[in-house]
């Protein structure tokens, strides 16, 4: 009895020490390897991370040959709301000199990994703060608003010019080119609004709500329903009936389905729409790559909604 009493605490202590040492060693090793593998090895090239691949795309469009960009969220088959961190991400963020992230809780993991890999040289652009949005903003899918990416691109060009002053003129020129390349999208949005202002639409999630609003569409889906689907909880039966009724009663001209956030509920809503002859358009949380850059993606979404409203054509995959 005495023996076991003597050995037990020692064993526990040893295990605790061992775990503690492991806990300290793992992040340290990750940090060391991050420093060793840092892309800063290429002089004059800024290592940058976009938390979502649409921000990474704007980073590389503005930064051109003077940035080396990676993105964290880029899997069009998974739900970004359920993302969990890996050590390779920690490595990339640890080595980055410029980070663009969305904010509004959409990519909180970035804030965590940044505080775990402190780097006084790193600049972090939070799109929510760039746009001056309060934390209570209910729809975090900011990139769908036509005013968002021009502001992001401007901030990116400014940050890159501060990091690499020699190439400031290069970044400025690329910023102008990026702004100009958004014109077809803006024109398509304006043309749709002029022609179909007030057209009734339904959605499963608030993902493309800002774009639909800019297009003058009237989203009839209760926000509580969209928020419940986004947050992975059950919508109320009243709202479920209401959304099915919008479709079976032909009270909307298109249903936008979040292709990355699918559940048995969104699947049954999609089926109801198709059975009722309401066209379905897929919208995405992150840029559907390859084959798209940000501008072409947004233009494709507007065109898809337009085809649905004008001709009843579904676009279930971009």
């Amino acid at each position: 009895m005495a023996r076991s009493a003597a050995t037990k605490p020692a064993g526990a202590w040893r295990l605790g020490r061992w775990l503690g040492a492991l806990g300290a060693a793992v992040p340290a090793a990750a940090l060391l390897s991050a420093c060793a593998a840092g892309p800063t090895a290429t002089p004059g090239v800024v290592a940058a991370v976009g938390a979502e691949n649409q921000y990474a795309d704007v980073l590389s469009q503005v930064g051109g040959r003077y940035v080396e960009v990676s993105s964290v969220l880029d899997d069009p088959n998974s739900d970004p709301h359920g993302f969990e961190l890996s050590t390779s991400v920690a490595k990339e963020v640890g080595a980055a000199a410029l980070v663009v992230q969305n904010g509004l809780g959409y990519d909180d993991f970035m804030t965590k990994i940044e505080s775990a890999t402190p780097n006084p040289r790193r600049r972090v652009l939070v799109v929510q703060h760039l746009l001056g949005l309060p934390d209570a903003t209910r729809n975090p899918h900011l990139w769908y608003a036509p005013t968002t990416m021009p502001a992001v691109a401007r901030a990116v060009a400014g940050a890159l010019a501060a990091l690499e002053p020699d190439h400031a003129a290069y970044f400025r020129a690329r910023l102008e080119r990026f702004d100009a390349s958004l014109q077809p999208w803006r024109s398509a949005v304006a043309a749709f609004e002029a022609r179909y202002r007030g057209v009734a639409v339904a959605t499963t999630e608030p993902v493309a709500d800002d774009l639909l609003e800019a297009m003058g569409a009237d989203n009839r889906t209760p926000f509580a329903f969209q928020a419940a689907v986004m947050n992975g909880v059950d919508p109320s039966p009243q709202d479920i009936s209401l959304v099915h009724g919008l479709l079976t009663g032909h009270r909307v001209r298109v249903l936008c389905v979040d292709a990355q956030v699918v559940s048995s509920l969104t699947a049954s809503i999609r089926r109801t729409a198709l059975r009722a002859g309401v066209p379905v358009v897929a919208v995405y949380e992150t840029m559907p790559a390859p084959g798209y850059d940000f501008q072409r993606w947004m233009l494709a979404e507007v065109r898809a909604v337009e085809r649905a409203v004008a001709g009843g054509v579904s676009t279930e995959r971009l």
Partner: protein
Amino acid sequence: MSAVHRLLTWLVEPGFASSAPVHVALVVGTVAATVSAVVGVFTVLRGQSFAGHALTDVAAAGGSGALLLGAGALSGFVVGGLLGAGAMDLVGVQRARGRDLATGVVLGVATGVTALVLYLDTTTRATAGTVQQVLFGSIFSVDAAVVPVSVALGAVAVAAVGALYRPLLLSSVDPELAAARGVPTRAVGVVFMGALSLAVGLSAVAIGAILSTALLVGPAAAALRATRRLGWAVVTAVVIGTVSTSLGVLFAYDSYYWAPGRRGLPVSFFVVALVVAAYGVSGLPARRRRRVPGTGR
């Protein structure tokens, strides 16, 4: 007349009777509650409540695995439950000795597998609300196509228990006497575990895998406290289970109007709360009986 009408409109918010999600929820919930109550009475008699709970964890692994494969949750819950029942039979759940140990091992493994599969669900597939759906149930989101399947599976489970009523009862109450009388206790036990996994699978769809124990054990335990006669216990358990489930659906529907936010509260909570209330009430008559003689209180 108008008072009754006012009470009814106060109790039942508008649109309840005509809501399609409510219809599906009531049918799926009633089937799950009925099967769970019937099977649950024998589960409690056999002292296999813990095995029933472990089966819910295996069912959770199955349900989340089915969603990962793109199949319906119900198929996964049922297949998971059946596999779990087989595993527990292999490790010796029929023996009273060491049974908790074997069950505990299966439970631990199943929960670990659930954690892995739910992680894969949320990170590699475009799934939303998987955790909520598997663990706590999404009865208002159940596809109407699931209704005939759940009715059929429920009928199979109740028929199996009904066909084995006598040998099951004997082997539950006195396994040694049953064996002496030539009852194939092992085979009866295996069929019963099959019915048990169907019950767990069906109620996992209704109120979630984790909470399906409540629907399995709660009404049965309450009924067995209220009456000694097995037939009455089964009937009482079915009534407690189905009333709790239907009222749970009603309260969840009504809760949409309780707060200005227009968000319904989860059905599972109301069902479990009502089952617990029924269990509490079922203890009252017995307590009163006990107090009458002797002390004079």
